[in-house]
């Protein structure tokens, strides 16, 4: 099982704060995840996540290159929009 956590405004776009996926085909890469978001969570979510200011953390570590993400069973992915000012 792979857990995806939506932070800030992305939780509104997703309509939930997290999703869990069981991948029948093994590891998930970045394109796999974007496809899952649109197909199984909510249409338009993938576009919101494509915003280059959205950072990605894998098991609590922010990735320097989110395109290189490979998620395995048991992993937690967090989708992090820019933090708020004020």
């Amino acid at each position, binding site marked *: 099982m792979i857990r995806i956590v939506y932070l800030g405004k992305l939780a*509104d776009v997703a309509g939930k704060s997290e999703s869990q996926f069981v991948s029948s085909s093994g590891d998930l890469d970045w394109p796999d995840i974007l496809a899952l978001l649109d197909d199984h969570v909510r249409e338009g979510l993938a576009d919101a996540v494509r915003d280059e200011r959205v950072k990605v*953390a894998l098991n609590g570590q922010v990735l320097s290159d989110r395109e290189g993400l490979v998620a395995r069973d048991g992993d937690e992915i*967090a989708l*992090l929009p820019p933090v*708020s*000012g004020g």
Partner: protein
Amino acid sequence: MRDIRLLDAPFDPNAAIDALAMASPDIGGIASFVGKVRLTGGVEALELTHYEPLTLPGMHELADRAFGRFDLIGLLMVHRVGVMRPGEPIVCVSAAALHRRDALGAVDFCMDHLKSAAWFWKREKRAGQWHWIEPREQDHADLARW
């Protein structure tokens, strides 16, 4: 002394600062900043969301940097998460040092970096509706000072 905490319920900044002072008796001075939810502007509530695996480590790394940069005896960094009402404290940073410049500098430094180090997402409730707060240019300018 080093007291770094995230709290999901209201807290008393004075009690936290007093505890820092008690644990660091050998100080020359203690500088503090307490940020509160504003009473003006029609904000009915403020909510801070955080991502646990990043927030607390981010605050600890910031504390490490503050201890490395300033000559500190003690540092307190307490931040609220969850829903807060107008007038409630959001954040308290307090630094104890032998020298005034170190204490004041550390508080200023931590406040400038806290938001970017600790990953908070903020929304405000106005007229019954929640609104996300976007990133601000001023924060980047503040960081560029260091």
